């Protein structure tokens, strides 16, 4: 049987029968590695920021693979990886617990108007010094 001739010589070299219908090839059940969450740190001392997820058989390989997935462009100082299953989270239906009643402005920093007082204080200090 004739084999597939591709523009990609690597495909041609695989000698795949032309008659093979892709849909007839039995695809085994996906047996992916577990996922890890990747946290990227740009500079020493800065926060680690979550940048994505990857598959790996264990934490050590997750770190190695994360270096290329997330650390090869731009500046990187360090990386954390955490097993996705070790991340505890709420379900999205529970996101309403973060809705607070908007009237309680006294809980917001922006509700405190101190600028005028600070400026008045600074002015008084300055005048006192002169």
């Amino acid at each position, binding site marked *: 049987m004739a084999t597939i001739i591709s523009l990609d010589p690597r495909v041609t070299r695989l000698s795949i029968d032309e008659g093979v219908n892709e849909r007839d090839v039995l695809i085994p059940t996906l047996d992916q590695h577990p996922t890890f969450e990747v946290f990227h740190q740009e500079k020493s001392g800065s926060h680690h920021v979550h940048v994505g997820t990857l598959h790996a058989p264990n934490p050590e390989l997750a770190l*190695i693979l994360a*270096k*290329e997935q997330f650390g090869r462009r731009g500046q990187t100082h360090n990386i954390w990886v955490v097993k996705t299953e070790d991340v505890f989270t709420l379900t999205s239906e529970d996101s309403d617990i973060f809705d607070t009643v908007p009237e309680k402005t006294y809980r917001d920093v922006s509700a405190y108007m101190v600028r005028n007082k600070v400026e008045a204080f600074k002015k008084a200090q300055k005048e006192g010094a002169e």
Partner: protein
Amino acid sequence: MDTNALKNYLLRTADDQLIIAHRHSEWTGFGPLLEEDIAFSSIAQDKLGHAQALYNIAHEHCALPNADTLAFRRNEKDFLCCQFVELPNGEYDFSLIRHFLFDAAEYFRFSALSESTFEPLAKLAVKIRGEIKYHLYHGRTWVVQLGANGTDESRVRMQTALNYAWPFALGMFEQMATDSLLETSEVIVSEEILKKQWLEFVKGVFDEAGLKIPENSTPVFGGRGGFHTEYLQPLLSEMTEVIDIDPSAEW
């Protein structure tokens, strides 16, 4: 410093990088898992960069043609890479074993070169230290994972690949007659010394991985003198396919 000796050393070191870069890049899009495909392709790009940097030094200091000409316009017999890097990828087990054995050698070679009395080489060695360290870390971790922490199949595959790779890997340390001139002026350290450091290191990793180094192997030499396997010419033909259409084209 002896220019011919230096020319030979730079070219063979660069050719190793170029040819293994091409072999590694053949996995792009075919890797065993997406993340590994990306990582291995990135390693291939690093290797290509190392080859280019070495060709540039050869161009500037040994009156050789520029990097592109050295990479794409030479005949097969003018390549001085070891035969190890020419071998076809076969399965991923062999590619990983070769990658590990090659990068362990690179690690010691460039550590030594970072103290070379030939400044351009010493500077380059310092510059690429991190990349080589990562390549070795990557290779070492996979070898231990698939040897000691994988399945029976993965361990047998790694051992079979190692048995096949070993005599070729020993061929990386083929000494050339002109090397002694560079050793005396402390431009390079001898292949013998590198091989000793390399052996000790890879043995430790293979112990950890539960893999055995084949005994009584005869190194496969020849590559440094331009004698290659049947696999190099097809690789070069494929690598130069585009430039061959119009060698004078400007990119």
